[in-house]
């Protein structure tokens, strides 16, 4: 079997524009997902059932159903309702990019909220007691002590979530977007060369994964240096 490099070379521009789409989807959904995850995580560590339960239910339902179903519910499903089609949001909700970003952001917010909640719960008692001893108000305590400390310690797990999210964005190719996977499917349908088309896509994803892993290692070096094991 011969691997046809010319096919790959000819379609490189398509793959690179796919990389841009993938990165755009990833960045937007991660940003909104994280924004949504912080309040959700704070709700998840509350002792009041009325606060905790809605956040628990949200993360449980999102984490218990496949991403593909969530994406289809938003992209194909919402159009079923006349009220949605008549609303001012319809121009946005009929766009595949918006729907994909919305679905991905909701999905990652649930996973990130659980990661953050775990990290918040693991805050050392001493840090909390010190904040109280300094007479910090609740808001100052959250802003200066609890959140910065928990966000740092969540970094290693969050890096996993980011990489899972990079892989999840490949589902965007099912709602007509031409991301890396979409480019590969286009190339496959043009040339009928599955190995060339999908191995190239796989290499792009591997490359992006390694870059993200390296970036997070740098971030951990910057923000988690005080927790790293001693080198000598």
């Amino acid at each position: 079997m011969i691997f046809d490099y010319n096919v790959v070379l000819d379609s490189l521009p398509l793959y690179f524009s796919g990389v841009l789409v993938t990165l755009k989807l990833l960045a937007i959904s991660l940003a909104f997902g994280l924004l949504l995850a912080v309040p959700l995580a704070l709700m998840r560590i509350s002792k009041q059932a009325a606060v905790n339960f809605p956040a628990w239910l949200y993360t449980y339902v999102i984490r218990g159903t496949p991403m593909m179903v969530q994406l289809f519910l938003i992209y194909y499903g919402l159009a079923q309702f006349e009220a949605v089609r008549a609303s001012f949001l319809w121009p946005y909700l009929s766009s595949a990019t918006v729907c994909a970003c919305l679905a991905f952001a909701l999905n990652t917010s649930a996973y990130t909220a659980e990661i953050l909640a775990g990290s918040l719960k693991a805050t050392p008692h001493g840090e909390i007691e010190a904040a109280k001893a300094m007479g910090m108000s609740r808001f100052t305590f959250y802003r200066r002590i609890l959140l910065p400390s928990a966000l740092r310690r969540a970094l290693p797990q969050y890096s996993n979530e980011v990489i899972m999210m990079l892989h999840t964005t490949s589902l965007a190719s099912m709602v007509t977007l031409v991301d890396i996977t979409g480019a590969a499917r286009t190339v496959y349908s043009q040339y009928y060369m599955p190995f060339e088309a999908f191995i190239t896509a796989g290499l792009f994803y591997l490359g992006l994964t390694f870059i993200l892993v390296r970036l997070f290692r740098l971030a951990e070096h910057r923000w988690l240096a005080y927790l790293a094991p001693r080198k000598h």
Partner: protein
Amino acid sequence: MLNGYGATIIDGTWLTLQLALSSMAVAIALGLLGAAFRISPLRWLSGLGDAYATVIRGIPDLVLILLIFYGGQDMVNRLAPMLGHDDYIDIDPFIAGVGTLGFIYGAYLSETFRGAFMAIPKGQGEAGQAYGMSGLQVFFRILVPQMIRLAIPGFTNNWLVLTKATALISVVGLQDMMFKAKNAADATHQPFTFYLAVAGIYLLITSVSLLALRYLEKRYSAGVKAVEI
């Protein structure tokens, strides 16, 4: 129920469950093999195991599914004429799905199993050797039974992810519940209803699995003291 599509969706659910369970069986076998490779003292074996885990975990499931399904189809039909078989061969999507998901989640499980193996005190394996057990006997009689307890949390996670990933196999034409829901949605113009029903069924499957695996974890932890802080 569901405009008369309820029964076909239940049929699809059954296929989804079969797919998930069969893939998990393949994944456990490959995961054990991968973990055994990775903890092996032989450099090239552990390198091979590491490469398997790293490459597969670095590529999205969907890309691997498309690659293995279309690529496998292509390869089979190029090899078959050489073996004197001239008809076009269609690969059964169920078999392809089981192979693909098993191969992908084998890599994830090899990571879980490797961590669990490494958490078993060294003395356990050495004691087995001191009794004159062979390498395989130490692996299956000493390491694997103790590894199960340590691997259950990671295993639970992988099982849930795999169950949800079965939805992707509908892309290559397996008539699982996702595929059936899509057909029903197209026919009735009620996509929300059908995808919501499928989401509910997935939620049911994951909930039941969580409860069952939590029970199993308790069983396997009998005799191990839980430390209270």
